[in-house]
């Protein structure tokens, strides 16, 4: 009898109580609408969570809530074309009616871009509306990361400006990517040099407000601003307590940020590779009805990629990524990775992880206020705007070298494999003058260099003359590049003059290139040291010499092996 009582008690409290707890307050339901009509496909999320639900065709949602979460719950809603909405809802709330405000249609061509640099008034100035509203005043870390990136330097890059002076009529499109905030007024017609010299926010390259005002990107070989649709709008002033605010409309990749004076609009386009394609997909349309034989260089390319040979590729990084992605099986771990996943991700020098999108408030009372307001986030929902691309650190971690020497009598055979391990596009990528050199050298125990008797040699474009001055042509090794040409037999011509590509052996993502070298080991005793070095160059040697640039050599990888006789 006692046993059965205990059992009953256990059954009641041991099983049903947790069940009740698990069920109570576990769900919030409701509908998202514009006040009348439902909004389908909206993201409904508890602020700073990493999971969310999406509204159905009736705008309805069912949002599970962790029962340990404090009450009420900050529920946020985002959908492209609408300002993010924010509510505090009681756990277990049923039939909540959440109404979103639309981002106004249209685009204001007279819009004045917001300066990225922190203003002297800090957040106080921004809040009061009297000082200038700048991004860096509150998003301190984002600004610092961006400022050091090449995105901030596109307009004043001396290498770009040097070539600009020589580019003739073709140069009128340069600003479309290099000074897009100015070029948007006159696409294909803007003088980059003039913009670079005049100063002002348009000189800041690709900056915060520019990208966060982009509504849509059309994937096209056309440059930068010619592919973009904007929502350059300002909302009228409104009063918030004692302060007058001028909300700043900004598109972003998060549906769960609503911090006055910002008026954020969720736009998932910012998290997709297509967004980057605006500038990182660009080719030259051949004049007249001319075409080039793309099948000779890219036998697997679809006719659409180069528009049946009408387009000669220049910046083709987006397409290289897309071709790679399409080649992957559905269950491949790399499937679905976007540009932003690698180029807007954490690096060791940024640690400890930041948990706040808003960091600074310019000091004093405002800092105390904002510290109370800001929301702790999971670092995986924060995307550092450092845009590491061909930086030294990144280059040193992108390729993998494997070296296998073997000695048979007087013959030293060396197998070298080079793998593009970490780039989701070809290596090197970018404009046509980027290149990469694999140097292979064998020396005996006295330091004497062994002569090459077989295998590839570095091509002429790596520079003829003294190797001490960076001229490596003729040495044992391989040159990886995309070689442009014109109709007069010239190679390595600038991309704005190229009528074809004649060779492209740059490394495809995750693929290895295997090369075999043979050296004469007849006179060696003791041991032989074999070295392989992979070097990245920003430009071809001839071009660097012409403009007085250094080639920007970066040793990406090196390895050595010793063979004993």
């Amino acid at each position, binding site marked *: 009898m006692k046993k059965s009582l205990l059992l009953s008690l256990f059954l009641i409290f041991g099983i049903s109580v947790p069940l009740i707890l698990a069920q109570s307050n576990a769900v919030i339901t409701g509908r998202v609408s514009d006040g009348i009509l439902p909004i389908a496909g909206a993201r409904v999320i508890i602020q700073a969570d990493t999971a969310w639900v999406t509204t159905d065709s009736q705008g309805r949602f069912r949002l599970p809530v962790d029962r340990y979460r404090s009450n009420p719950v900050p529920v946020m809603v985002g959908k492209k074309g609408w300002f993010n909405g924010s509510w505090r809802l009681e756990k277990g709330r049923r039939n909540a009616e959440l109404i979103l405000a639309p981002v106004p249609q249209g685009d204001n061509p007279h819009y004045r871009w917001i300066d990225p640099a922190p203003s002297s008034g800090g957040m106080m100035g921004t809040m009061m509306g009297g000082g200038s509203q700048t991004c860096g005043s509150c998003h301190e870390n984002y600004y610092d990361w961006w400022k050091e990136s090449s995105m901030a330097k596109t307009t004043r890059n001396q290498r770009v400006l040097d070539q600009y002076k020589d580019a003739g009529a073709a140069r009128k499109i340069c600003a479309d990517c290099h000074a897009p905030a100015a070029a948007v007024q006159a696409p294909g017609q803007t003088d980059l040099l003039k913009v670079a010299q005049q100063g002002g926010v348009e000189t800041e390259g690709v900056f915060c407000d520019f990208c966060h005002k982009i509504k849509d990107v059309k994937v096209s070989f056309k440059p930068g601003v010619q592919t973009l649709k904007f929502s350059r709008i300002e909302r009228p002033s409104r009063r918030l307590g004692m302060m007058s605010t001028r909300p700043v409309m900004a598109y972003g990749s998060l549906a769960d940020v609503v911090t006055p004076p910002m008026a954020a609009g969720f736009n998932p386009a910012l998290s997709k590779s297509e967004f980057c394609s605006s500038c990182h997909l660009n080719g030259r349309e051949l004049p007249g009805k001319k075409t080039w034989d793309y099948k000779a260089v890219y036998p697997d390319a679809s006719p659409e990629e180069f528009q049946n040979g009408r387009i000669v590729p220049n910046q083709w990084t987006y397409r290289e990524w897309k071709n790679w992605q399409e080649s992957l099986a559905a269950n491949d771990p790399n499937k679905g*990775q976007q540009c932003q996943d*690698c180029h807007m991700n954490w690096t*060791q020098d940024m640690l400890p*992880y930041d948990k706040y999108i808003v960091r600074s408030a310019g000091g004093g009372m405002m800092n105390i206020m904002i510290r109370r307001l800001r929301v702790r986030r999971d670092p995986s929902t924060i995307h550092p705007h450092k845009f590491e691309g061909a930086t030294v650190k990144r280059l040193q971690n992108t390729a*993998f070298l494997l070296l296998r020497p073997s000695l048979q009598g007087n013959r030293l055979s060396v197998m070298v494999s080079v793998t593009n*391990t970490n780039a989701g596009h070809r290596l090197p990528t970018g404009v046509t003058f980027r290149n990469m050199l694999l140097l292979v050298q064998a020396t005996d125990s006295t330091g004497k260099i062994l002569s090459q008797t077989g295998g590839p040699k570095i091509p002429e474009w790596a520079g003829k003359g003294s190797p001490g001055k960076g001229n490596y042509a003729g040495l044992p090794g391989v040159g990886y590049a995309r070689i442009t040409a014109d109709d007069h037999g010239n190679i390595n011509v600038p991309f704005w003059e190229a009528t074809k590509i004649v060779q492209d052996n740059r490394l495809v993502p995750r693929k290895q290139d295997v090369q075999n070298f043979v050296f004469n080991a007849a006179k060696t005793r003791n*041991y032989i040291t074999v070295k392989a070095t992979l070097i990245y160059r920003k430009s071809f040697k001839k071009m660097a010499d012409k403009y007085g640039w250094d080639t920007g050599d970066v040793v990406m990888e090196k390895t050595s092996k010793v063979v004993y006789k």
Partner: protein
Amino acid sequence: MRIISIAFSIALLVLISALNLVAGEITGTVTVKGAADNGGAVVYIAKNKDMKFPAPVQEPAMNQKNLKFAPHVLPVMVGTTVKFKNNDKVAHNIFTPSPAGDMFNLGTWKGDQVKTHTFNKSGEVVLLCNLHPEMEGFIYVAPTPYFAMTDATGRYKIENVPAGSYTIKVWSEHGNARPQKVKIPEKGTVTVNFTVK
């Protein structure tokens, strides 16, 4: 039954002491030229035809924290299953381009899940992350159970090596060292020093 177990214990004891009697140790220093310190070099006995040893039972862990592999170098014996953990606040995707690691790719994950890979080929396995290119770590798969990793000063010690003649090799991410031949006596210590350059 009891007699059998006592006999077994005695036999085991005799076996262990016999093993101890004919086992020596190898110690020494590895100097790694051009590196911050002399740590992380793996000294191991190369396999010869006569060597036989049981399969490894331990499953050591390779962790990921603060965008780094921890430890930076993990030496294991061939046949070892390594547990891969992510104690970081962000997702990682470990993979290797190295043949000794069968070019595995563990996919992207975050949180408590533990993934494993069994290393059946000896050699260097470089560990990389698809999402954080600067992350680099190493697993060195030694061909025999007789291996040790140097501390920051370069010291190492390989214990319980059966008496015999061997070739000792060194792996380091920083370069190469000349292999050396040694004779291990039935008891005692042999000192072997290396320079990696």
